[in-house]
């Protein structure tokens, strides 16, 4: 019997000049090819190009028996496989060959598949509020760029990002696979990490959103203590909100290293609609407890023991490989288990407390609609721009000066709120052409400009009466690369206040809202559908029932009332009267149904 090699450490080697991490493992061989490219490297107008390359690179694998997959993340793209040695070799060499020569005949089909995948996915909101419509914020947006990508664009992206110098391989098995050769596109050196942008002038910050529950993330230094903080926070949230309070069913946290020396701690607690206020209050208090230094030693030990179990488990090395590959791509060498364990056991409550304080300073919290977090010291994240551009002004509809107005200037566009505040300032959403992340462009002339800060302005020439010449000036002024051409839309939207836009357009949600000062119907069209109130629902039921009753009486009289004792004239008159009453009763219900939505 041969002695087993030390199981838990990672070994650094090379395959065709590509840095390779190896770990001994039994069972089927596992491998991953990782590139330093992801969504955060894209622009909003090209969003999805990395994902598209990943799909195209896997197409030729077809319906292989072995297990394989691909994953496009914020800053990394993974190709993963599990199977017999020859299968792993075939997969890796196949992926590399495809990256050199992508199957462009599949381009349109894979675009369709991406659209289907997208329709099932819910885009996270925190990234766009934190980072804006660029860099790490792009994971919160739809893959708008995919539609207009031409074969050359995709090929260029693959040959500049999925390159020999920008890859790391990892293998877990009983030996390095024989005959493995990886031929990737040449290309420049390793890509630097994406720039970290910010759309938050102040933190901690918060925003309100319709969904229930409380969601928070915070940027902290990437460390073992921070990882343990996330674990301790989860235990405290579960205890306060689920076990003791009974306000939440789920309370959970997550820790994701950004691999640039920082990590994101995410915390979530769901809520019954009736208990949202208590969930928010309890959430704030749990965070405050940790910030005040109340770190339970028992909690810390429980979280530490679990982390240690992961490090010493039989598949510890294999689990660490994908992350270690990402680290290697950012110039960080793999670390030994002993080193990681000694670091783990050195963490004290004071270290965790320091992380809690760091997290308190960078937190971004999503609270349920109708709630705020300013009382707890969180600043409202911006939902409008600090200024409006000057230029030609287009009022919606009647132009009574009270409606929202569109301003089109030389530098950009602004949508100003219905009325100016008392101090003369006016809330506005502004997108400058030079910092325009994307322009959605419809064939009917409508445009949506999205700034790199995430603020967006809809320019609807029909609703605001913008002439063709002015519209053309916008198309000329925006960066050509930012334009996204979309197919015809079913309906051209009416002029709406920016706020109702955000209520009706759930996809592509960004921070548009110029809060209208008056809730009246915007000029130029019907009142936007607003949420139906309980009283309105009751009215619908009452009037609906009454009109139904009268309709029955009217119908009965119309059918059976024409007997010999009544003249035809009387019969016509009375029938008409009964139907008239029915219509009068039905009208309010119909009106409410048309004006509101559930």
């Amino acid at each position, binding site marked *: 019997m041969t002695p087993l090699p030390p199981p838990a450490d990672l070994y650094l080697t090379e395959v065709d000049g590509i840095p390779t991490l190896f770990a001994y493992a039994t069972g089927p061989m596992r491998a991953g090819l990782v590139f330093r490219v992801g969504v955060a490297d894209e622009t909003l107008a090209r969003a999805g190009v990395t994902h598209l390359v990943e799909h195209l690179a896997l197409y030729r694998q077809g319906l292989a028996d072995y297990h394989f997959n691909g994953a496009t993340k914020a800053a990394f793209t993974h190709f993963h496989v599990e199977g017999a040695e020859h299968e792993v070799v075939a997969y890796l060499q196949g992926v590399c060959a495809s990256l050199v020569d992508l199957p462009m005949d599949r381009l349109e089909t894979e675009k369709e598949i991406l659209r289907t995948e997208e329709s099932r996915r819910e885009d996270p909101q925190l990234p766009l509020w934190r980072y804006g419509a660029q860099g790490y914020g792009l994971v919160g947006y739809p893959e708008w760029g995919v539609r207009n990508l031409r074969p050359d664009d995709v090929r260029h992206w693959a040959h500049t990002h999925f390159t020999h110098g920008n890859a790391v391989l990892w293998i877990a098995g009983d030996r390095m696979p024989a005959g493995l050769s990886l031929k990737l596109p040449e290309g420049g050196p390793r890509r630097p990490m994406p720039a970290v942008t910010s759309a938050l002038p102040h933190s901690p910050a918060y925003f309100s959103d319709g969904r229930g529950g409380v969601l928070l993330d915070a940027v902290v230094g990437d460390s073992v203590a921070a990882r343990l903080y996330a674990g301790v926070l989860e235990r405290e949230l579960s205890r306060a909100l689920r076990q003791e309070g009974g306000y939440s069913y789920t309370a959970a946290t997550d820790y994701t290293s950004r691999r640039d020396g920082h990590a994101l701690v995410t915390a979530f607690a769901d809520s019954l609609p009736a*208990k*949202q*206020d208590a969930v928010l209050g309890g959430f704030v208090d749990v965070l405050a*407890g940790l910030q*005040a*230094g109340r770190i339970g030693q028992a909690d810390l030990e429980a979280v530490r023991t679990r982390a240690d179990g992961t490090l010493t488990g039989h598949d510890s090395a294999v689990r660490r490989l994908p992350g270690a590959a990402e680290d290697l791509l950012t110039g960080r060498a793999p670390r030994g288990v002993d080193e990681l364990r000694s670091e783990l056991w050195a963490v004290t409550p004071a270290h965790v407390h320091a992380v809690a304080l760091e997290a308190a300073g960078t937190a971004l919290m999503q609270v349920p609609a109708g709630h705020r977090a300013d*009382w*707890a*010291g969180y600043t409202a994240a911006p939902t409008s721009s600090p200024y409006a551009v000057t230029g030609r002004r287009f009022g919606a509809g009647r132009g009574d000066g009270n409606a929202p107005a569109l301003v089109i200037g030389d530098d950009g566009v602004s949508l100003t709120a219905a009325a100016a505040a008392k101090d003369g300032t006016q809330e506005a959403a502004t997108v400058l052409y030079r910092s325009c992340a994307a322009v959605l462009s419809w064939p009917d002339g409508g445009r949506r400009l999205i700034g790199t800060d995430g603020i967006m302005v809809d320019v609807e020439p029909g609703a605001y009466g913008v002439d063709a010449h002015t519209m053309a000036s916008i198309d000329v002024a925006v960066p050509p690369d930012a334009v996204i051409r979309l197919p015809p839309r079913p309906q051209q939207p009416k002029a709406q206040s920016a706020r109702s836009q955000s209520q009706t357009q759930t996809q592509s949600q960004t921070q548009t809202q110029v809060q209208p000062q008056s809730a009246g119907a915007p000029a130029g069209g019907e009142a936007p559908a607003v949420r139906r109130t309980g009283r309105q629902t009751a009215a619908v039921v009452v009037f609906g029932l009454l009109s139904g009753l009268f309709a029955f009486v009217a119908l009965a009289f119309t059918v059976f009332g024409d007997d010999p004792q009544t003249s035809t004239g009387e019969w016509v008159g009375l029938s008409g009267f009964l139907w008239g009453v029915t219509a009068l009763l039905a009208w309010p219900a119909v009106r409410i149904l048309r004006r509101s939505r559930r």
Partner: protein
Amino acid sequence: MSQAAAAASSSLPPPDFERASAFPEVTWLRNAAAARDWASIRQYIDGLPFGTDRSFAVVVLAEVDGIEEWLRPLVAAAPDDVLALTVLGSREVDIGWEIRTSARAEHVSKAQFAGLHAHLRQAEQLLIRATALDPSYDAAWVERITTAMGLQLGQNEARRRYDRLAKHHPHHLSAQRRLLQQLCPKWSGSWESAHGFARESLLSAPEGAMNGCLVAEVHLEHWLSLKGQEREAYLRQEHVRAEVVEAAERSALHPHFHRGYGWVGAQSSFAAVFSLMGDLPRAAACFRALGNLASEHPWNYLGEPAETFVRHRDAALAKG
């Protein structure tokens, strides 16, 4: 009848609204605050036996004009001083309410509301820290019930705060009185929950405890919310009368009634509600227990406090 005239027509001494008359330590606390002797104040309050309603002392200190001027730097220098955080938080609430004034909401300007909310937010953040540092600190939770109400954080959130406190202090009179306000319809609650909470507080407290006064207070709130003849009709209902009598017999009229912090207010609530019901013998018993001690509340619900106190006391003692 003017206050002076009312007092003059009575053969009994005028009401004494001074808290220090019932609790001499109030004078000591005020003097210590005037001397900015924080160490002594802290030593005194920290030394109170566990279970003492610390809100009483905190409220006394928070009423001291200008105390924020030296408490703010003190808290900045000692951010872990739970008592200092609590007193300053309570003081910020008071300053906010002074800006708002006690006028009805429609007579309060936007700027006044903004001032109130700004001070409530400051208070809340001090108090969040206080309860985070010591989750069993009753006085900080009591203030947070008030900030939750003023900032309109919601019924469940107010109740959550009370529950956090009640876990350590199940019969905390100051906390129950503040939560009762939140539970009333005027603060988006309901009579069902307000009456339910008052009854729950009565029954869970030991015999002779002050907590039964919540039953008297909730009926006074209900009475106050009605108009004209409805008011009298409300208190004449048999079940209302029975509830108030039961509560009084378990608290203010119990032979072992506990005269802790807040007892003058508790006794006064029963005196007022029995007077309004026309149950003069029981009202008289309450007035006898009070002597000339009085609290602004609930007499301010009935009119000018001194005048109404004297009128109802004299009427009760003449017959009862």
